[in-house]
């Protein structure tokens, strides 16, 4: 196309881009913008019947959120899930990647496939399955723990254990995805770096600390950001397994948004919840990118 006139090229380009961009604009960017507007109205079930009943209320929804203890519970639970479950998932993924990628491992592809399998399963189906695995009396997990001499735990019925149970499920389901990315990162580290380190007499641990980890930093950042964004959107697990209980101990921000917006039809209020979620995700993503940028300058 280099020889063609600029105008013809631009016209052809728009002809290819227009359908997809129009749809993304209409069904993503427009609703995102409208969501901000919705969050400063009192749009509720009556407005759903007659939208002229919705009024602008400024920041009242946000004010109400701040004074609603349930909102803070949801925030606390979501951070708990993301900041404990996220790093745990990344750590398990890295461990699995190092093992699968270790020298002289046979059937590498088989192990990789097996570890990856949970990731492709339907979250709803898996949540249904794990609800039975977590059963205090006839669940498999307590049986296994019993073999190790640990007393039965009421995983989903005890407010202290419900969130750890959901985290364990999330780690199991997601580590394979990050593992594959880590394996790709590990394989892109040039072998000569390790050779040089060994010539300098570096031990296995030192090689890991001084070569593997720094070379893996970009992969690490990518994995951390993607995992965190995903974990802040926690919804299906508590919806299916606990309905946010017991005692709101697994109520997440998205579950709260769903309940407010689509169950009670407080759509203005729900939109405010959604925007708080967006703000949190944006802020934490920027922090992680900033941390990375600082590391890059030695």
């Amino acid at each position, binding site marked *: 196309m280099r020889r063609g006139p600029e105008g013809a090229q631009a016209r052809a380009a728009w002809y290819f881009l227009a359908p997809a961009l129009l749809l993304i604009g209409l*069904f993503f960017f427009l609703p995102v913008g409208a969501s901000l507007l919705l969050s400063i109205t009192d749009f509720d079930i009556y407005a759903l019947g007659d939208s002229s009943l919705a009024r602008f209320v400024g920041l009242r929804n946000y004010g109400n959120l701040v004074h609603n203890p349930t909102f803070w519970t949801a925030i606390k639970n979501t951070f708990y899930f993301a900041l404990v479950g996220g790093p745990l998932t990344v750590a398990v993924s890295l461990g*699995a990647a190092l093992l699968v990628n270790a*020298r002289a491992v046979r059937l590498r592809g088989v192990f990789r496939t097996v570890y990856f399998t*949970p990731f492709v399963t339907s*979250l709803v189906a898996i949540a249904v399955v794990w609800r039975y695995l977590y059963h205090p009396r006839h669940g498999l997990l307590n049986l296994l723990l019993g073999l190790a001499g640990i007393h039965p735990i009421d995983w989903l019925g005890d407010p202290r254990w419900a969130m750890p149970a959901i985290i364990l499920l999330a780690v199991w389901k997601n580590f394979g995805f990050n593992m594959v990315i880590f394996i790709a*990162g590990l394989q892109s580290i040039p072998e000569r770096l390790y050779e040089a380190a060994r010539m300098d007499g570096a031990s296995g641990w030192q090689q890991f600390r001084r070569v593997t980890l720094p070379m893996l930093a970009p992969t690490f950042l990518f994995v951390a950001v993607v995992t965190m964004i995903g974990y802040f959107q926690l919804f299906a697990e508590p919806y299916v397994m606990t309905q946010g209980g017991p005692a709101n101990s697994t109520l997440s921000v998205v579950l709260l948004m769903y309940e407010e917006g689509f169950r009670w039809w407080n759509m203005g209020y729900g939109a405010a919840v959604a925007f708080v979620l*967006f703000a949190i995700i944006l802020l934490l993503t920027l922090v992680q990118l900033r941390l990375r940028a600082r590391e890059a300058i030695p």
Partner: protein
Amino acid sequence: MRRRVQTFAVHGVLVVAAALTVLPLVWMVAASLMPTGEASAVPPRLVPSAATLDHYRALFARLHLTRALLNSAGLATAVTLVSLFLNSMAGYGFAKFRFAGRDRLFRVLLGALVIPAQVAMLPLFLILRALGAIDTYWAVVVPGMASVFGIFLVRQYALGIPDSVLDAARVDGAGEFRIYRSLVLFLCAPVLITLAVFTFMGTWNDFMWPLIVLADDRLYTLPVALANLAGEHVQDTELMMAGAVLTVLPVMLLFVFLQRYYVAGIMSGGVKE
């Protein structure tokens, strides 16, 4: 000698971890084949005393999950075909044409990846409601017809198509759409398969959006139908496990057969940052 011990230990950990990873799935399948009540036996068992397909029969005959299975398959296929077409056009457009503001537009699109989908859901519901699309298949299909991720994936791949090949086709008198249809699609086949697998699995497994827009249980997708059953049939462990197998199995088979493309897609998305 030390190396031998080390290799042995690594394999030991790998095998134990693999066993723990598949255990929930193995139990799911085993429980779905157990006679009623056996999955709740104390102590729990891993092998059915006598395998039975009764629960699968019940799913189809009594609970009408055939309909949900067909809904899921149909919707996932429709979204996959339409989005493949639109995303490949746009990805090619971004990769191989020059026009004012192209790079800025692309950056804006990529920036949108950080916006969680839930932010759009409430107004999207109202928009689709105004269009009369709520509680129809359209409501599930429409938001998935084009995606930033899909455009990104195709663009990265299409950048590698040499301009000379396209120019040669133009010299031969081929129109732009014809070049896209018979040349670009062909050259991009590997990434399109990757994207197809991603989209199909994503749509099949999606839960929150179908849950919101589908009220009529004849339109339910499998995950929505299963979540609904899970509320009503909590005590029927074996029946629920059969439902879970039915929901998980099709995508898992797809993954096993096409994993080469799927894994390649994850790696290209993750490492090229």
